[in-house]
């Protein structure tokens, strides 16, 4: 993605270039403004928002909305702030990401280097499971979680995200390992390495980038999920997205827009941070999910 392939090939006039730059800058503004406005307004006292419009800079800078959103805002019925829910999301996302990545890596390894009759069909079925509308599994999932006694809990959500993450992680590792030279596996077999030794000693050491892609994609997806969180983890076990929605839509009292914005940024912060730190892998994950290589 780094090198401009059309270099020297497509030339354009100066007027056209000015237009191109204007267009791009306009859209940069379109994408940036909503976030900047949220940020600005999360640092204003409420009266400034209701009275003074959204675009203006704060006359009086305050971090009060942030403190309130974090630890005292009313979420549902409890004035706990978003902190416990933020923790819920962490407790949910980390194990689910790790588990689905480990399983996806092994699946990808098997599906590319130990192929057998019918493996493409199995992969096809796994792949399709990435794209089902999750509404189709909500009802039976609720039953199963109930039977397993983990309905409405973080372990329940971990299970759900793990189960429905396997398809994507398998896709990533399969496509990555498909390009990994099979001769290396053969050489290792002749050298006497077994199934797991080959995976551990030969495949994994070369899997850094795809592990990053899988971690980031899974983390973003799981952190940002709302449907499963809202369906299976109400109340104390709710993840950040559900808590944010509750905060914003709580009907009691005055609407504290500045607190809502602070909360929204908090909910966005972890995935944004991942995006800023490792955007390259994020983009690769998006592409791998769209153009099946």
């Amino acid at each position, binding site marked *: 993605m780094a090198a401009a392939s059309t270099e020297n090939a497509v030339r354009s006039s100066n007027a056209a270039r000015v237009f191109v730059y204007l267009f791009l800058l306009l859209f940069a503004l379109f994408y940036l403004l909503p976030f900047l406005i949220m940020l600005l307004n999360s640092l204003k006292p409420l009266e400034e928002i209701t009275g003074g419009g959204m675009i203006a800079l704060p006359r009086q800078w305050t971090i009060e909305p942030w403190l309130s959103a974090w630890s005292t805002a009313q979420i549902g019925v409890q004035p706990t702030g978003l902190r416990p829910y933020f923790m819920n999301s962490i407790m949910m996302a980390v194990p689910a990401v790790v588990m689905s990545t480990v399983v996806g890596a092994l699946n990808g390894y098997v599906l590319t280097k130990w192929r057998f009759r019918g493996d493409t069909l199995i992969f096809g079925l796994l792949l399709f499971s990435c794209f089902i509308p999750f509404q189709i599994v909500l009802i039976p999932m609720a039953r199963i979680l109930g039977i397993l006694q983990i309905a409405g809990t973080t372990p329940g959500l971990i299970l759900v995200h793990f189960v429905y993450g396997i398809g994507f992680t398998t896709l990533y590792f399969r496509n990555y390992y498909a390009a990994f*030279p099979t*001769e*290396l596996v*053969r*050489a*290792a*077999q*002749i*050298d*006497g*390495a077994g199934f797991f*030794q080959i995976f551990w*000693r*030969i495949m994994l*050491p*070369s899997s850094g980038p795809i592990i990053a892609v899988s971690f980031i994609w899974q983390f973003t997806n799981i952190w940002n999920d709302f449907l499963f969180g809202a369906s299976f983890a109400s109340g104390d076990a709710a993840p950040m997205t559900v808590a944010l929605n509750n905060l914003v839509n709580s009907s009691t009292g005055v609407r504290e827009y500045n607190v809502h914005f602070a909360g929204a940024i908090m909910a966005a912060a972890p995935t944004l941070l991942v995006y800023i730190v490792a955007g390259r892998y994020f983009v690769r994950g998006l592409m791998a999910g769209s153009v099946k290589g």
Partner: protein
Amino acid sequence: MGFLDIDNVTKSYGAVEVLHRVDISVEEGEFLVLVGPSGCGKSTLLNMIAGLEGITSGEIKIRDRVVNGVHPSKRNIAMVFQSYALYPNMTVGQNITFGLEMHGTPKPERERKMKEVAELLQIENLLARKPGQLSGGQRQRVAMGRALVRNPDVFLFDEPLSNLDAKLRVDMRTEIKKLHQKLGTTIVYVTHDQIEAMTLSTRIAVMYDGYVQQLGTPKEIYDSPANLFVATFMGSPAMNVLPARLVEQNGALHAVITDHAGHDLALRIENAPAAYASYKDMPVHLGIRPEAITDPEGADRNARNVQALPNMVTVTEPAGSDTFVTMTVSGKDCIARMRADADVHPGHVFDFAVNMDKAVLFDPKTEDRIA
């Protein structure tokens, strides 16, 4: 009983048989080359010897032990791959000793063997590097080192030189031959390059379409090809195959061809095998290698039956050491290999000398050599 026996081996994928009844017996210390165009089954056969692919029927024996179903690591073989297959995350030293480690060899012994092999291949200074930092030739050496350190019964080479540039390929070829002479190991070597096959092997199996077309020493393969495929595949430029008719004149058999102008020209055959008689007055394919058609001064002095072939030169291709000349014989392009300073010019008629000792005849229908 050989050292490595391939006994009636076939390979099928589903209903499709891709390798038909292969029978090869390799003696200890032999250098067997499997050569053929891509898709001929040579790599499949090698992988079956290695244990990387299953055997559909038949048996493969190494040192009289049937190895069907035996894990690759327990056949006491080593393999050098086309891509070298060096583990990218390990150093050269670790690459070489990985197999020993997997087989539970104690560390001091691993170190000792690694040193020996590194010395033999002159890669001592590379041991701490990663494969990514090596040149193609260096990788090739490391791959051989990894195979050597195991001290296997049989070495398998899968097109090991095809990723190298032309000059390095020739150097490494010599290197492999030297190594074979020095160590006397048994080698099975797959290539599509007939020059590699000729230069390296003690015996060659020419494969095509899942069949072993001919198994023999390089000289047998080159001088007495079993059929048209072997004749044209081995040798560069390829053997000229010219439509001809076999007739008897003055008590001797002659192969009748036509020159550039379409006139008949009879080339006398001496010491004709008995089988030729039954092809009298029938069409045959006359096979003559380019070096058997030359200028009279450059003709082989030991040849007993050199015949004149006056014909028009179409193209000359000076190649430094030789000059290749193309002409039309029996309506086909025919290549002659001349001395570099032979005085030939396109459009001129030249008296070529044909060494009929080296000529072979093929049945046009079965394409087998008539003998």
